[in-house]
C-alpha cells in the first residue's frame, strides 16, 4: 500500500493532499502509477498530461522508470520554487 502525496497547485487541483492506495497488479514503476491514477478521469488526467510533473519516491527525486513497490512513499508535485 504505497502512500501517495500531492503538493502545491497539484494538491489543490486534485483536492487531496495524500492517500493510501492498493498497488494494482502490473504497476511497478512511476509511469505505471501515473497511468493508473490518470485513469480515474477528470482532474486526475493531468497527471498524465502535465509536461512538468515532478515525482519523488521515498523522498528522492524519481524518473518515469523508477520502481514503485508496496511500502513506498510517492509524491507528485509541480516544479519547485523556493529560496
Amino acid at each position, binding site marked *: 500500500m504505497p502512500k501517495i502525496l500531492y503538493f502545491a497547485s497539484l494538491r489543490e487541483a486534485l483536492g487531496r493532499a495524500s492517500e493510501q492506495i492498493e498497488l494494482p497488479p502490473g504497476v511497478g514503476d512511476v509511469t505505471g502509477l501515473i497511468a493508473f491514477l490518470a485513469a480515474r478521469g477528470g482532474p486526475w488526467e493531468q497527471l498524465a498530461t502535465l509536461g512538468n510533473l515532478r515525482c519523488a519516491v521515498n523522498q528522492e527525486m524519481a524518473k518515469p522508470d523508477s520502481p514503485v513497490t508496496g511500502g513506498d512513499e510517492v509524491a507528485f508535485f*509541480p516544479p519547485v520554487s523556493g529560496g
Partner: protein
Amino acid sequence: MSVRVQEDDFDVAAELAELQAGGAGAGALVSFVGLVRDLSGGAAVSEMSLEHYPGMTEKALAAIAGEARRRWPLNAVRVVHRVGRLLPGERIVFVGVASAHRGAAFAAGEFIIDTLKTRAPFWKREVTSAGARWVEAHAADDAAAGRWGER
C-alpha cells in the same frame, strides 16, 4: 553542517556567529539572505506562503550542503529556510558558508542557493493585487542551477 526548516524568522547575527564558531580557521564567511520582494511580475505582493514537503526538504537541503562540502574546502555550512506565511521584506532563506578562502566561500554559497531553487521541495504561493497564484519555477533558476553541472 546545519540545515533547518522553520516557520519562525531567523536571527542572521546568530546564524553568522554559529557559522563562525563552527568554522574554526575560516578566513571568509559568505552569507546569502533571500527576502520576499514587494513586486512580482509588475503586481504588488501583499503576502506569500511557502509550502514544503516535510522530511524530503531536510534531506534535500542536507544533500545540497553535503555536495557543496565535497566540491569546495569548507569549514562550515548553515542553511535555514522558512515556510508558511510571509510578508514583503521578510527573510525567506539564509545560506552561510565558512571557508579558509573567499573564492570557495562565494562559489559554494551561490551553488547552494542556485541548487536549492531547483532541487529542494518548496512551493511559493503569492497574493497580489491580481489575485493569488502559485509561483512558477523560473527558467532563469534552471539555467543558474545548470551552470554547476551534474553531481
